[in-house]
């Protein structure tokens, strides 16, 4: 270096600058040790000069550091260490005796080759800069960013949940509106159904009586032969096809009664849906509900599906068993109808925390993705006319909602549908119902 610097000034700078400076020769003997190094290592210049670096500081990572220094001698090139990968070279106390926060001073080091007149490296000079403040700031920054990212993820999750809740809300609002309508309709229909039903019973009896009366008259027909009346009777009988009329009348009555029963069932469904019949809460075994429903449907299911039960141990739950039976009935009926020829219906149960679940899966035709959002809507059905009213799943939905549970459906392409019902073991009192 040239310029108006006295050796004394340079010596002063090297010694007093707030940077650790030391130098070693090819054998790693210390030839320079400035004040920063002496103060922080608590080893004075006098005690270390001329001694091997690793003898003075046995805790240094010797193998690695020797190679590093050697590479500077050979390559005549700089080398570096950074606090991010190697927090420190020397374990020095940090500059925060009061406020703390780190275990030791963070250091960035530069290894400088000092070439002699021959061009060969004679000494390796190392500068050591205190990076504690930067390191702590960056660590805090990294922690803050990690925290922010975590919060962002949590928020996204929350937004997802909100969307789900909103969808459910829309669903239950729809159901509530339809429920009110259904309650009104059910009430209105119940009365006429009642008198039509009893009238039909009377009419059936009257017809039976009339036909037996006519039968007696028929026995008198041969005696009427001499009268011209017989011809007109037989003519009239032929005109109305009396034999068929007599037979068909009773069939008509039977069909009408079936029709009425169907109307009654629809009204019952609507009532269940609209919560007209509220049964009482009791502790019940979900497996009993499933099994009793299976028993009711046994004759329908027998020809259609193999029933696989995978039951787990479940606690008794607080519920309205009759209503749950209805849910299982609806789901099992759907499952059975989804199976084209013969298949399997799998019933699984399980328990997670304060919730139990029951799953009904079928090997049937499945549900097209486009319909998945609509299946719980009242009167939505894909079944043939007469095979379903589109109330089964919406009834199930409202019953489960009333139980403070939820119902999920999953359906992989080309596979059957799986409905899973989640129910709380104990209802929350806040509901008030």
């Amino acid at each position, binding site marked *: 270096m040239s310029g108006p610097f006295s050796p004394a000034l340079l010596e002063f700078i090297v010694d007093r600058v707030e940077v650790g400076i030391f130098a070693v020769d090819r054998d790693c003997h210390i030839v320079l040790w400035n004040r920063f190094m002496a103060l922080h290592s608590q080893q004075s210049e006098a005690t270390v000069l001329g001694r091997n670096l690793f003898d003075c500081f046995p805790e240094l990572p010797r*193998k690695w550091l*020797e*190679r590093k220094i050697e*590479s500077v001698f*050979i390559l005549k090139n700089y080398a*570096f260490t*950074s606090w991010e990968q190697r927090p420190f070279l020397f374990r020095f106390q940090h500059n925060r005796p009061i406020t703390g926060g780190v275990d030791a001073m963070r250091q960035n080091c530069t290894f400088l080759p000092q070439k002699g007149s021959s061009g060969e490296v004679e000494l390796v000079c190392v500068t050591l800069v205190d990076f504690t403040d930067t390191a702590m700031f960056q660590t805090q920054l990294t922690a803050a960013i990690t925290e922010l990212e975590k919060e962002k993820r949590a928020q996204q999750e929350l937004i997802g949940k909100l969307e789900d809740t909103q969808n459910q809300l829309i669903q239950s609002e729809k159901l509530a509106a339809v429920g009110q309508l259904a309650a009104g309709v059910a009430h209105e229909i119940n009365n006429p159904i009642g008198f039509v039903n009893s009238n039909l019973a009377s009419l059936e009896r009257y017809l039976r009586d009339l036909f037996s009366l006519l039968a007696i008259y028929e026995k008198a027909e041969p005696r009427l032969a001499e009268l011209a009346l017989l011809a007109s009777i037989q003519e009239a009988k032929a005109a109305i096809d009396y034999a068929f009329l007599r037979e068909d009348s009773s069939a008509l009555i039977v069909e009408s009664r079936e029709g009425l029963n169907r109307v009654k069932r629809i009204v019952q469904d609507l009532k269940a849906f609209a919560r007209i019949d509220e049964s009482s809460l009791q502790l019940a075994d979900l497996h009993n509900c499933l099994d009793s429903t299976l028993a009711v449907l046994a004759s329908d299911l027998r020809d259609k599906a193999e029933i696989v039960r995978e039951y787990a141990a479940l606690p008794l739950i607080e519920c309205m068993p009759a209503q749950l039976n209805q849910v299982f009935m609806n789901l099992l009926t759907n499952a059975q109808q989804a199976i084209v020829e013969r298949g399997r219906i799998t019933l699984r149960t399980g328990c997670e925390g304060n919730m139990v679940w029951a799953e009904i899966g079928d090997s049937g035709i499945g549900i097209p993705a486009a319909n998945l959002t609509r299946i719980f809507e009242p009167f939505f059905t894909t079944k043939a006319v007469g095979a379903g009213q589109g109330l089964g799943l919406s009834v199930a939905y409202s019953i489960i909602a009333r139980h403070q549970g939820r119902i999920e459906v999953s359906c992989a392409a080309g596979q059957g549908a799986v409905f899973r019902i989640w129910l709380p073991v104990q209802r929350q009192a806040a509901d008030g119902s």
Partner: protein
Amino acid sequence: MTDIHPADLSGDQRDALQEIANIGMGQAGASIAKIWGEFVQLSVPCIAHLDRQNIPAMLARFVGDETVHAVRQAFHGQFRGEVIVVFSAGRGDQLAALMGYDEADSVEEQELLLDVANILVGACLGGIAETLAADIGFSAPSVMGLDVPPSQLIPPDELVSGRALFLKVRFTLEKKSFASHLVVLMPADEFAVLGAALDKFIGAI
């Protein structure tokens, strides 16, 4: 990429740089072998001028599709520029013993990459600078990316527009399946100084 641009080095200058780079790599190989006690191979440097926007594509072309680790290091002094050293991901353990590490964990592996990059850059560029009698210094290397596709090492919107000099060397350890690529990038505003130094070199022989 190979079209002539007024700012680019002339044909003679490029030939001279190629020659100097060849010599430099020979010296670098010898020095590295001395440090590690292993024979290393350095490919003949490939030199090109290109628009900076094409650098990511060029990197991807040389390095391939597999994800890589990369380290960048700046050099300054008579010439300025940046060097990118690209390592195949997951081959660091091959070098750990050479660099005096017992067992490299992930943080140590990063330091190992920095150390190796520093040695490669110092050896290769040091050789070239010495031949050109140029005085250059180096900044500390830093990790550019871990496990990233080569084409994504430099986000294109971070590249300043303009020409650049691209010098690429492939580095392999003879007895180990370790390879890395060293890419020297110099901005066009350095071409004049570099050209002058090359002219001086051509004049001297």
